[in-house]
């Protein structure tokens, strides 16, 4: 090992939305961070169907996301895809996870995955993808 890390800085801008939303919920008697899924919402994830569910469907089912990521390469999204991923956080009996939802250019779910926090690299986590959609996720 020859390189020594001195500091790490996260991109605070990506968290700005979550911070504002958390403040808005501060007066709630049962506050929960924005984008954190309840057990009821986790139980309803099968209702999200790639190629059928819309952005509005996801918002109605899961509420505001924990984070919205606009990922494009030099201003261009991948073919057939929208330039937006929604992420939610949750926890079940297997531990914490992140719900990763990508949309296509028509505002429908392109790809959908429940990714355990404790799953760096390795074999990866299976994702559901719309039939006939682009083979690549937008973040590639």
């Amino acid at each position: 090992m020859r390189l020594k890390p001195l500091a790490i800085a996260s991109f605070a801008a990506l968290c700005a939305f979550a911070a504002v939303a958390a403040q808005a919920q501060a007066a709630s008697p049962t506050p929960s961070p924005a984008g954190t899924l309840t057990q009821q919402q986790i139980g309803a994830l099968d209702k999200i169907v790639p190629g059928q569910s819309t952005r509005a469907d996801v918002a109605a089912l899961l509420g505001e996301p924990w984070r919205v990521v606009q990922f494009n390469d030099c201003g261009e999204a991948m073919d057939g895809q929208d330039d937006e991923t929604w992420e939610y956080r949750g926890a079940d009996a297997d531990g914490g996870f992140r719900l990763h939802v990508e949309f296509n250019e028509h505002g429908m779910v392109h790809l959908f995955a429940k990714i355990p926090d404790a799953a760096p690299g390795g074999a990866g986590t299976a994702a559901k993808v719309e039939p006939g959609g682009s083979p690549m996720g937008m973040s590639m």
Partner: protein
Amino acid sequence: MALVDAQSPGDFCDKGARFGAHAAAEGIYAPYYGKIVGVSWFNAGARIWDIRDPRNPRPIAYYIQAPNKNTVASCARINGAAAVCHNAAMNDYVEFDDRGYIYAADRAGSGVTILSLTGDALKVVTPQAK
């Protein structure tokens, strides 16, 4: 954030995200001018090469960002197989400053890491180094 032991980098084709050389550092200042170059290598991290002999560049150091809670998953369906998502960092740029610090920026949202050379790699850029 973690350092990966130089003896066991693993198979980067199994780590998710992209692999391979991406971009060479665009601004090289003293004390590094003519001595080293930094190249981003996506999931293989930031890689530093000794270029004192440009006909025989030599890898001297690397740093691989570990995925963290801000890392955006990389998802793909390769060769018709089922779609898979990986939590993988993906180094996008390596830059230097005139104090000798090295900045490694992650494309997948994991952050920017500030690095310095140590050990044998540091000897490459010390004033007495040829």
